């Protein structure tokens, strides 16, 4: 066990964990931050998508040691107090979620896309590779367009 310090959702956080433990399990099992979901553990389903220094990444394949001294943002840290992030609001306005399991990752992927590309085309949105087993893609696309125009 080693002690690691990083910024988690705006707060300095120190946690003891094996250096190679994926950040996903540090977040979920050691810190109780359960927004990032386990769907595959190998970085292909993207259900755990969060931000590392503002860019989308997958905590399931990122050892905690790589996050030391950096800023980790999960879905829990996206809203500004009680004011939802515009993408979260667009998600509600479009009534996107069905079972909801993949949705934190979908929202975090959408926020990262809009940060680098504020007015994405349908082809740009196609680059989001997160799995949604309920098939909410039509409304995810609509919510991203809505957030882009808001």
């Amino acid at each position, binding site marked *: 066990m080693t002690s690691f310090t990083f910024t988690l959702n705006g707060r300095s956080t120190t946690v003891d964990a094996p250096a190679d433990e994926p950040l996903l399990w540090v977040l979920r099992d050691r810190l109780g931050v359960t927004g990032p979901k386990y769907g595959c553990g190998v970085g*292909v*389903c993207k259900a755990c998508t969060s931000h590392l220094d503002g860019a989308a990444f997958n905590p399931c394949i990122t050892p905690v040691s790589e996050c030391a001294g950096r800023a980790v943002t999960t879905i829990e840290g996206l809203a500004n107090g009680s004011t939802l992030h515009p993408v979260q609001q667009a998600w509600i306005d479009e009534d996107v979620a069905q079972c909801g399991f993949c949705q934190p990752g979908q929202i975090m992927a959408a926020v990262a896309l809009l940060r680098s590309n504020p007015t994405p085309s349908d082809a740009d949105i196609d680059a989001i590779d997160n799995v949604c087993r*309920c098939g909410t*893609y*039509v409304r995810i696309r609509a919510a991203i367009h809505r957030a882009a125009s808001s």
Partner: protein
Amino acid sequence: VWFGSKSPIVAAQRIADAIGLPADRVTLHVVRSGGSFGHRLFFDAAVEAAQASKVLGRPVKLMWTRNDDMRHGRMRPPSRHAVRATLLLGNVVAYEHRQASIEVDFDHGLGDALTATGASLASEPVTQGVYRLSQRVPYDFGVATELLNDVALAFPTSSWRSIYSGQTSTVNEIVVDEIARTLRVDPAAFRRSKLSSARTKAVLDEVTRRGRWGRTMPAGTAQGLAVHEEYKSVVAFLVEIDCRDRAHPRVTKGVCAVDVGRPVNPRGLEAQMQGVLVDALSMTLFAGVHIDNGAVREGSYSDYHFARMAQSPPTVDVTVMAPNGEPGGAGELGFPAAAAAVANAYARATGTTVSRFPIVSA
């Protein structure tokens, strides 16, 4: 025991059996969890967790990895279908559908302890009863018979969204297109002339109108459509597909009309129809599990190709038909029509006959 369950009563009973406790000593806490799609009727991991906790003498958290789940969990059983339609003077005078399948596991009894006990004691397989109650050819096809021949193999199975209809009715709707092609008649007009339900004709008319059925399209692209009746509801799907890259077909548009008798939550109903099209196009085109020398090939979402955004239609236009009766079901309703519409569109776009699924990696 805390887990996501659709059958907590029978699960508690089976967990009690597995660890030698009276049933009233097991308390199940149903937690919010991801979608079921058939899987959460079962409770295999919960039984394992109880057994592990008993052996270790302490609370345990037990989680299957995705690889464990895909390679050792439950799957929709494979099926093989043989259909013979006897045509005479432009009519179908006999329709015989014969299906062979690995047995679907209904041991959970659809959730309550009494029927679960009944399922384990019944002299006639429960599968035959479910098949007979759910399957019906909705067309005037003369003498129409559908028979299931299923055998239990050492293969963990589960019903999926749409249960038998996901396979049986999907096959029927693909064959209806084949019959229309043989008779050289338009598949929408042919359906209309042979359907007996006015509600089904109405949803079919709605998608052909809104989807501009028969519009001119470039070579390698096509429309396809299909209908389904079940759960006191009816639905029609029309899709457009682009198969110019055969290895990467894309459903570019979906049009759906759904009549559930009395819609309670129209936005939720629309979402079910949009989502089930993604589900159905995945199973029809890309997402399959293969058995190589007894081992499951696919292990995760890297090789089990469930559609992502890039394989999904940008728009799915859903018409919710006006209320006209008692509420019917919707969650499982859409799959067969959506799957068959995709298969029929693929066949029309490529000039092929589709008979193995998923089409791209059959």
